[in-house]
């Protein structure tokens, strides 16, 4: 993930418009919260990008910080790569600082596509769970065309990534200097570095929100820890089982077998196979949304009860995410108090 400027230069530039938030980011940049993964961000601007001109110039100019990256969304005028930070909270704060500086919204802005980058390459099955969990857990239900997911690396000769929601890195720069929690016997050991020398699983959120960043960070933490035997591996494996059981209840478990990520396996190169699975998921979620709204319209006083008790897929995913978010924090605090949970 290449950014040819220093984090300190970025903060110095942003400080003039948002001093308190910039100070908070600077103070907590490498602070990892409850053993979650660090968070990287890329901002793809689908508009003209003029709002970023002063920022880009201040960091050294387009040639230095933008053109050095071949990677960007196919419809984007620019892709700004941000330095990784220790938590979703810092990532959100950093984006808010940039909003202050450029004077326009980054969250929930159709012209801005936010890519959330997590360390560690997830295998095909876990990449599917990341994408499906993100989609159903988001505060926005989106319809896609395959073109919405096209990047300059879709057909790249060396690193073909296809048109997907989840993408691997292209072996660029990688910042390992974030805490990694692992288990040794009954003890929690905090390593000062991530256990991977390279490798990320990125998610193209489209027009993304704060909740999307928090959800992706939680999902990636659970899945990466499950795959790489981190401290949260047990919680992560339990989450995987529950997510797959949830999909099975809704007769959607077969979706996990679609090629949600393009790996080195030639069979994963089927964009259409992925898109058919995504469309099935989208159709199911939209149908569920219509059902909830209809119930709400006809029986307004029953609406809340129905939403709570119907166990529709959208509600179930919210509950699953909430349960895991709370459980992770609870276990982390228990350990801090001396109980190995």
């Amino acid at each position: 993930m290449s950014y040819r400027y220093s984090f300190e230069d970025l903060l110095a530039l942003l400080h003039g418009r948002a001093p308190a938030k910039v100070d908070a980011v600077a103070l907590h940049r490498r602070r990892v919260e409850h053993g979650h993964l660090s968070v990287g961000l890329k901002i793809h601007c689908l508009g003209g990008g003029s709002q970023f001109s002063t920022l880009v110039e201040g960091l050294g100019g387009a040639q230095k910080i933008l053109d050095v990256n071949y990677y960007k969304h196919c419809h984007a005028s620019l892709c700004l790569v941000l330095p990784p930070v220790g938590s979703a909270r810092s990532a959100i704060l950093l984006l808010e600082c940039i909003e202050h500086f450029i004077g326009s919204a980054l969250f929930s802005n159709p012209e801005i596509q936010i890519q959330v980058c997590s360390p560690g390459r997830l295998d095909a099955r876990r990449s599917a769970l990341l994408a499906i969990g993100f989609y159903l857990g988001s505060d926005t239900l989106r319809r896609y065309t395959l073109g919405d997911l096209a990047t300059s690396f879709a057909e790249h000769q060396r690193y073909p990534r296809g048109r997907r929601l989840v993408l691997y890195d292209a072996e660029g720069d990688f910042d390992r200097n974030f805490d990694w929690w692992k288990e040794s016997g009954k003890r929690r050991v905090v390593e000062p570095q991530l256990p991977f020398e390279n490798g990320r699983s990125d998610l193209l959120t489209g027009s993304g929100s704060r909740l999307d960043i928090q959800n992706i960070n939680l999902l990636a933490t659970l899945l990466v820890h499950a795959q790489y035997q981190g401290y949260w591996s047990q919680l992560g494996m339990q989450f995987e089982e529950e997510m797959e059981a949830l999909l099975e209840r809704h007769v959607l478990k077969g979706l996990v077998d679609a090629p949600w990520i393009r790996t080195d396996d030639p069979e994963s190169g089927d964009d259409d196979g992925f898109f058919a699975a995504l469309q099935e998921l989208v159709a199911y979620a939209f149908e569920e949304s219509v059902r909830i709204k209809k119930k709400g319209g006809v029986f307004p006083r029953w609406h809340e009860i129905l939403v709570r008790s119907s166990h529709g897929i959208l509600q179930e995913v919210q509950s699953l995410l909430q349960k895991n978010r709370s459980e992770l924090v609870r276990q982390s605090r228990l350990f801090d108090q001396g109980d190995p949970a």
Partner: protein
Amino acid sequence: MIFRAHQPGSEPIDIPETIPNPVVVPKPTPTPTEPAPKEPVRIPEKVP
């Protein structure tokens, strides 16, 4: 953005590209304002 699906003899249907997830309770979006800088600490003048 709105997609319009027109069929002869039927009312045009508007299909939104994105809709809010009905089960997510929207949190109020923090307005992009910075907290006002703290006022300098005033040291009371010594009473002679």
